[in-house]
């Protein structure tokens, strides 16, 4: 039988020449006028304010990060720091809020101040880690009076957050602007943290934290890699690549390096530090593609701010990096980027276009060591200065992205439709059956 599927009504005369044998439903009912646009594209829900500025949180969008904790449920950590002197807001550290997602609608729970310690008045959220469906680990830094890498464990019931006591994981003896850290869960009771070495601006260490209830304990800090000379900060990104094995990408001078750590108890063993790229600028992110294989994303220079990618294979603790390759996202220059794996060969990247500050999304396919970048989509036409974006996979191909909109911290839900399989057969007179969010499998009915 031969025919064709095409969009009816207005818009461009896009034609899908073949049978879509199977696809995953979007978050909303699809009509004929918009179906084709869903294919290989994203379907975004309404951009929703999660945290508006208040006296307790004047700039909630700064460094905010989110993590999926359960199907269609996320925990968002946001900034409650006071801006500089002259602002009378009480300084409080970080806050947390739980959001549930129904289709693409976001419901926001009660906001909870997680950290209240008035002597420290500048904080930075580094990471939010899911430990379990009812527990998260928030990693953040206290900079100013007491310089410390801090952690707090929170339990979640419904939309309610119960915070533990926050803990100084690493204390730095002098005030420091050069605190960077990243974390990944090794299990529901153990977290690997990469961080600036005690009172050294230029070297990286790793510490394993164990969690009992909401109490955090630490193992010994282990130096990772050599001294990085005159580099003034040690940004890093970590990802779990196998049981008790993490890949750490980090800045090393002007280069980008990687190393593999194995963990036994709270003891860290480190493989050789390997150069991944000769130039590094910002926006570092490691995503595990499969066991012992990662893709490292980074911005390579301050001028173009294009995003580069390096696929790395790991054998034991030895890293074999592929070529550092520029992924040219149209003509976008990228600032603030996050990425997650959708499927084994599909990467989703969200970023702020550093020229117009739009929130963008792009899907990349990885095949035989090559990354093919799709067309970037504008997710939100926000024009605010770029700050941290954070993306979490909350359900099968459904994403939650937190980002700045105005002076708010917003969240937006999107679904990704992918064409699973196409054939070259055309079908006449195909009648579309309207799809709902619970529709799966074949939905096109042949009208003959």
């Amino acid at each position, binding site marked *: 039988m031969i025919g064709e599927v095409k969009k009816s009504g207005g818009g461009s005369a896009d034609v899908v020449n073949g049978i879509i044998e199977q696809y995953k439903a979007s978050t909303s009912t699809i009509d004929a006028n918009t179906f084709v646009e869903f294919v290989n594209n994203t379907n975004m829900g309404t951009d929703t304010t999660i945290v508006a500025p208040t006296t307790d949180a004047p700039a909630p969008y700064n460094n905010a990060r989110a993590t999926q904790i359960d199907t269609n449920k996320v925990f968002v950590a946001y900034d409650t720091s006071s801006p500089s002197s002259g602002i009378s807001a009480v300084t409080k550290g970080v806050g947390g809020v739980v959001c549930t997602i129904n289709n693409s609608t976001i419901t926001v729970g009660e906001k909870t101040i997680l950290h209240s310690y008035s002597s420290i008045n500048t904080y930075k959220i580094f990471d939010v880690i899911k430990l379990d469906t009812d527990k998260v680990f928030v990693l953040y830094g206290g900079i100013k*009076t007491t310089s410390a890498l801090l952690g707090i464990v929170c339990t979640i019931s419904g939309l309610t957050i119960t915070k533990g006591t926050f803990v*100084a994981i690493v204390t730095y003896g002098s005030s420091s602007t050069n605190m960077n850290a990243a974390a990944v869960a090794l299990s529901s009771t153990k977290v690997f943290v990469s961080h600036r070495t005690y009172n050294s601006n230029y070297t990286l260490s790793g510490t394993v934290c164990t969690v009992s209830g909401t109490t955090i304990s630490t193992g010994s800090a282990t130096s990772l890699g050599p001294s990085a000379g005159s580099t003034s900060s040690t940004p890093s990104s970590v990802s779990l690549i196998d049981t008790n094995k993490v890949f750490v990408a980090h800045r090393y001078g002007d280069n980008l390096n990687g190393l593999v750590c194995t963990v036994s108890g709270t003891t860290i063993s480190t493989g050789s530090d390997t150069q991944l790229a000769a130039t590094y600028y910002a926006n570092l992110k490691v995503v595990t593609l499969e066991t012992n294989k990662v893709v490292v994303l980074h911005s390579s220079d301050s001028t173009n701010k294009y995003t580069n990618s390096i696929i790395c294979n790991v054998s034991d603790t030895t890293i074999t990096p592929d070529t550092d390759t520029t992924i040219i996202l149209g003509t976008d220059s990228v600032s603030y980027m996050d990425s997650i794996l959708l499927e084994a060969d599909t990467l989703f990247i969200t970023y702020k276009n550093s020229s117009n500050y739009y929130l963008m999304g792009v899907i990349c396919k990885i095949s035989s060591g090559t990354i093919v970048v799709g067309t970037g989509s504008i997710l939100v036409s926000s024009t605010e200065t770029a700050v941290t974006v954070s993306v979490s996979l909350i359900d099968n191909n459904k994403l939650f992205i937190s980002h700045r909109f105005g002076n708010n911290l917003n969240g937006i839900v999107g679904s990704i439709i992918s064409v699973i399989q196409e054939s070259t057969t055309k079908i006449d007179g195909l009648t579309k059956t309207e799809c709902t969010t619970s529709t799966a499998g074949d939905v096109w009915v042949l009208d003959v």
Partner: protein
Amino acid sequence: MKYVITDKDDVVIALSTKCNDNKEYRNLELDDFNIAYAPDEEFNVYQVEVPSEVEPSKYCYTEKDGFYKNPNYVYYYSDEERISALEDMVNELILGGM
């Protein structure tokens, strides 16, 4: 009297009215937060009178020398403070030129 917790370089890292060493979790439990310490990590805990000007990171303490300014302390300027200072400088230049 307060508990004064210093690190291995004698830098004051916390001041607290209470200090309980929870050895099971290796947590020093203080007024507002805990300090998690590794098995090989060194902290010193003193209980002394603390002058009002003493703040963590800015001061060091030893029993021999008492409180003294931390020679390695670096004041942290937030991005907002830096921007504000630059704006003031620019305004001065512009108005000065007029």
